[in-house]
């Protein structure tokens, strides 16, 4: 009986962690190329609502997902234009993106509150794998987007560390002047990964509105975008670490949920605080550890590249 509860909690940890995982993977790409994008929360929200609107209109969650990617990517393009082309302050631009995203999604979503989604993403049990004891129900009885994230993690890891494109990306994030001198287009590289990051954040948002919840609520991301930003530091800019990191955060979320259902004598408001407090605690521990192990963010993270100041 307790195993069932454990499996249920772990399975929820996976689904609860998935939106954070997508967003964190996107942020890893942006930050590896040297652009800090604090607009993840805003991009997720706009992704969630645009995906939901199309999901409702077409009754096809896949079309909704594509729309969410387009929306997240477009939001990220604003950030890229401001920070890469106009060399604006990345912190403030990211905050603006989040605030704008909260406003825009609220504006677009006004008519969508309480509207049911005709066709959410459905659970697909993977043949063979889903029958595995324990592992099966935890990892392989989910919707297709979870499986997409399983594929994305090793793919992005290989991209970053094993390919020429990844070498260029990391060089641009570490030392753009050097990359430029070796003929790598710093501006184009940053645009590409910031926008790709926005698309992934859009998927993360759409996962909430098209699979996890599935419906639209104002501010439904509830800080997950920010947790994703923290997760990137926790994962030391590595997609593989982001995977299990996201599931830990998802697990905290799921745990609060479960404890509430089990009628534990803790106020639900305190249980809801858990992910935020946990994020702070983890961030402090990880920053300390990274300091000791001399693991740092990409050297040029947050610094606009200006050719004249070579």
């Amino acid at each position: 009986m307790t195993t069932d509860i454990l499996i249920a909690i772990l399975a929820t940890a996976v689904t609860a962690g998935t939106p954070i995982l997508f967003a964190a993977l996107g942020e890893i790409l942006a930050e590896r190329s040297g652009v800090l994008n604090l607009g993840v929360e805003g991009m997720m929200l706009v992704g969630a609502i645009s995906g939901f609107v199309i999901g409702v209109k077409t009754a096809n969650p896949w079309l909704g997902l594509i729309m969410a990617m387009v929306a997240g990517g477009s939001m990220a393009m604003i950030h890229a234009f401001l920070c890469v082309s106009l060399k604006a302050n990345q912190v403030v631009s990211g905050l603006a993106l989040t605030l704008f995203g909260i406003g825009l999604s609220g504006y677009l979503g006004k008519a969508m509150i309480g509207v049911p989604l005709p066709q959410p993403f459905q659970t697909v049990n993977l043949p063979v794998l889903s029958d595995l004891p324990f592992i099966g129900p935890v990892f392989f009885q989910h919707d297709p987007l979870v499986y997409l994230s399983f594929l994305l993690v090793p793919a992005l890891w290989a991209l970053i560390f094993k390919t020429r494109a990844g070498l260029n990306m990391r060089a641009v994030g570490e030392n753009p002047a050097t990359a430029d001198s070796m003929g790598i287009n710093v501006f184009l590289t940053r645009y590409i990964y910031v926008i790709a990051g926005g698309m992934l954040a859009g998927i993360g948002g759409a996962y909430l509105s098209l699979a996890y919840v599935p419906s639209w609520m104002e501010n439904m991301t509830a800080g997950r975008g920010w947790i994703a930003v923290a997760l990137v530091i926790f994962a030391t800019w590595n997609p593989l670490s982001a995977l299990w990191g996201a599931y830990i955060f998802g697990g905290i979320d799921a745990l609060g949920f479960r404890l509430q259902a089990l009628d534990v004598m803790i106020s639900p408001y305190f249980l809801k605080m858990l992910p935020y407090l946990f994020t702070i605690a983890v961030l402090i521990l990880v920053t300390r550890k990274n300091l000791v192990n001399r693991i740092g963010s990409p050297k040029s993270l947050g610094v606009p590249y200006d050719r004249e100041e070579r």
Partner: protein
Amino acid sequence: MAVIMLHMNAITKRFPGVVANAGIDFDLRTGEIHALLGENGSGKSTLMSILAGLYRQDEGEIIFKGRRVDFRSPRDAIGAGIGMVHQHFKLVETFTVADNILLGDKRAAFFLNRSKSEASIEGLSARYGLQINPRAKIWQLSVGEKQRVEIVKMLYRGSEVLILDEPTAVLTPREAGELFNNLRRMTGGGRSVIVITHKLQEVMEIADRVTVLRAGRAVATLERDELSERKLAWLMVGRDVVVQHKKEPVHSSNIILDLYNVSALNDQSRPGLEDVSLNIRGGEILGMAGVAGNGQRELAEVIAGLRPVTRGAITIEGRDITNRTPREIIAAGVSHIPEDRLGTGLIPGLGAVDNLILKEYRQPSLARGPLIDWKRARADAERLVDRFNVLLTSLDAPVKFLSGGNLQKLLLAREISACPKLIVAVYPVRGLDIGAMQAVHQLLLEQRSRGAAILLISEDLDEIFKLSDRIGVLYEGRLTGFLPAEHADLEEIGLLMMGSKWTDDMEEQPNDISFTARVTHLL
């Protein structure tokens, strides 16, 4: 041999307010080492940056191997076979040597095959005697090794023309000698090398031909057999050069700074300074020579209180200041002219008044309760700017818009006006033009006459010899020796810079240094 590989015809390049290159003609033969000689600001780096695709000329044309070329970026130039090794290396510190060399290489497969490329890099570096380990991370390498990586990087791209910008500035005389031998080996293989330099001895040593630039114009191109140092100096400066700053003997007084067995860690948490003991008397300049990265920065920072001392003791006039806060050390009479002028020594976004009170704002003389007496601060600033000849548009304009020379004068104005007992000057004239350089040296000598103790850290041996009363050498965080300036010669210093213990093996060192330099007091 006399096949012309490259022509630059009537190159003109203007920057806002200056003409950096005014119709310069330059040509390069196949298989030659061609020195481009000129003072700082004479336009030699600009000319080569145009050739390397970093800038584009406003007028003029480049003919390379018979074809007119138009480089829009360094990639175009590298693709055509022209590679430049910059003074500030273009390397990604966290990457391996191999990854740096592969970076931006279009021929590499999408999925990197690291073992294959490492093998080919090893082969290439062995062929030219440029020993490097392709698997090492850049931040683990010495400056000389980093330079070899840069050269191999360009060879790997198939560069036929290799441009080196002040390549010996960061090398010991022996490393410089090795570099010149390797360059010879490359020209033997049909490549051509351009060396940008302002050092006459270097030109005499390696150049097949020399083009001298002065104030943005090419004043002469000379063949090897036409060269003499005196002639080159005259061409470069445009007037006869006389030895300046006759140092008046100063009667040095009591010991001001005393370091006893001081050790400290570097930024990588490894030993950066080990068992350094030294002292400086009032009215004495101690010149600290050594290749950059051998503990100079750490030495300056432990004295200024910016880096913790792990062992040993530091005193100022007998008062212990070991591991005191920078604030206490400033109060004890220590001035520090840091390597990073703009950003550490000065605050880029603030004006001259704000910058000039950086160390004095706590003094009762500037206080009006919790507030600062700005009227007085402004009056003081006006006086200092005037006295030190700092050229400003206004006292409130951000100082980041000032030229290097004016920045340094502003910084010195602040540091000297405090009448310090000790001045720690780190690379005080780096990047300055001749006029500003002389002004800075004059100020330091004045402080010596006033009785201040001065620790001068420099990688320019000419500067060290010109100003110092005693010379010390740092190698891998240790002091390898002390010499009185009048008895020191460049060869000895050069050996110490490579880590020889000067008493023991000084005699045993084979005299194979091809760099048969001697100290010239030309400039």
